[in-house]
């Protein structure tokens, strides 16, 4: 399997649309086109092998299922994962002659995604590159604001950033996907699957989602008590095999209880005269989320 210049260009455009900050807005861009599952669909269509594309997308989506980028802190940029990692993974799968939906193919896909997207830090470099270049356009914007030339803002917000993306999304995607297939083959020879490096890489692929979940936890957990809902949810899914919608449904009744509890306590607190007792303060502590 090879990736033609035209195919590589289309992938480059999708990379531009779907990055964080991307040209399609976060709803349609990063949160839709950027998700590896959707990326797999797109790459499958572009490279003419839907099944392998989807399978690679599913595998990589698992790694990045809980990716959040709070305050522009990007631990893995999805343009590289979805539009460089997935196509190269597809090439690798083909060159190995693996069945699209086999476990090995999925693992290969994950390792490629890990390699390209995270370990290689390609994605984060591209992200910071784009964001930094945008400073130029923002500078133009500030001048326009000062001059009261507001219409210019549209160009600043909607037009110029394409230039950043041409450089940091389109070109890298174009080159890396087009020339990547030989690299992928080279990799195969250099790093045999049963060698320490590849084993480590695959293991890292399995461990990485822990960081994603932990980032989420950091936002939710303030006191040790906040671990409780997490572990209850974990238990429901791990021990009872409840699916996510079912977990969500069950969680609603607890949410309702805690809502009412907080309302009861707060109404109550209003009723208590200003000189509150220490008991209330103790309670307060673990109440803040």
């Amino acid at each position: 399997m090879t990736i033609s210049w035209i195919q590589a260009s289309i992938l480059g455009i999708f990379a531009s649309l779907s990055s964080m900050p991307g040209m399609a807005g976060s709803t349609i861009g990063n949160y839709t086109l950027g998700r590896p599952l959707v990326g797999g669909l797109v790459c499958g269509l572009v490279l003419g092998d839907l099944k392998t594309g989807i399978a690679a997308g599913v595998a990589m989506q698992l790694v990045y299922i809980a990716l959040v980028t709070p305050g522009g802190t990007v631990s893995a940029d999805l343009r590289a994962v979805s539009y460089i990692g997935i196509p190269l993974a597809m090439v690798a799968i083909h060159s190995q002659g693996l069945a699209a939906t086999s476990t090995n193919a999925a693992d290969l896909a994950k390792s490629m995604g890990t390699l390209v997207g995270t370990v290689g830090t390609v994605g984060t470099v591209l992200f910071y590159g784009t964001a930094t270049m945008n400073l130029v356009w923002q500078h133009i914007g500030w001048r326009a604001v000062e001059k009261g030339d507001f219409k210019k803002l549209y160009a600043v917000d909607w037009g110029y950033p394409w230039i950043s993306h041409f450089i940091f999304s389109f070109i890298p995607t174009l080159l890396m996907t087009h020339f990547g297939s030989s690299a992928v083959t080279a990799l195969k020879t250099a790093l045999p699957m049963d060698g320490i490096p590849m084993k480590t890489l695959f293991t890292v692929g399995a461990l990485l989602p822990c960081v994603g979940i932990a980032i989420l936890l950091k936002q939710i957990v303030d006191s040790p008590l906040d671990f409780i809902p997490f572990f209850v949810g974990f238990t429901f899914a791990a021990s009872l095999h409840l699916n996510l919608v079912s977990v969500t449904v069950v969680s609603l009744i607890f949410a309702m209880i805690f809502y009412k509890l907080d309302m009861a306590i707060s109404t109550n607190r209003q009723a208590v005269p200003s000189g509150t007792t220490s008991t209330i303060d103790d309670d307060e502590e673990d109440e803040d989320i």
Partner: protein
Amino acid sequence: MDNTEKKTISRKTLNKSFHHWFYGHLTVFSQEHMQTFGYLTSMLPIVEELYDNKEDQEKAMKTYTAFFNTEPQLGTVIVGVTASLEEARANHGNVDDTTINGLRAGLMGPIAGIGDSLVVGTLIPVILGIALGMSDGGSPLGAIFYIIVWNLLGYFGMRFAYFKGYELGDKAVGILVGAQGKAIRRAIATVGGMVVGGVAATWVTVKTSFKLTNSSGKAYLVLQDKLDSVYPGLLTALFIVACWWLMAKKNISPIKVMLILVVVALIGVLLGFFNPGLSY
């Protein structure tokens, strides 16, 4: 100004403002002024409609040059609120720069937190979790399902947030920040916590390949099975808590934690604790 007719932003302009935000909130993002320009382009149609003379427009737009960043989907409510405040300012002027920017600054933090964990960290993983199941085996169904469900929720949810914010004005703030808001956040955090737990258990799998075998090659101790009999998913849970601990208690950055995991993986592979068991 008191005697003039009350100015109201037309529906059309509100729509325009909303769509500018929907599309452009992050396009020209930089680390310095994250969503400020998205905000400016979103307020521009409103300012242009409310104020006729250039000077007033410039004064109004100046307000929105202050740094802004929040979670874009839920944050739409803030844009709606400022639309209504701008309208109020245009009418009687006892709303000023400081009010608007205090409110923007005060809300963007909490709403970023809520939005990142609720929308991006909870809602999207849940839809993705479902979709993944549907795409098992290479079917495009899951991906299509995700595209449709998420974008409908995203678009109409943001629309709702925008117009609700506009309608309620700073009362929306009261709801989000008062006792009820706290209770709501607690409720959401509960759902979030449980669902994230579910996501972790469903889609994250850390497994050890450690076994003790007797002379005839039969394994008499499969560590993974023993661990699961203690608590299903124990190893996964331990790794997640360890990562959390490193980041939350030891202030180690995610990137460094990942590097630590690489080292852990390497050692684990060398000791035979981890073995992905693959071959070309």
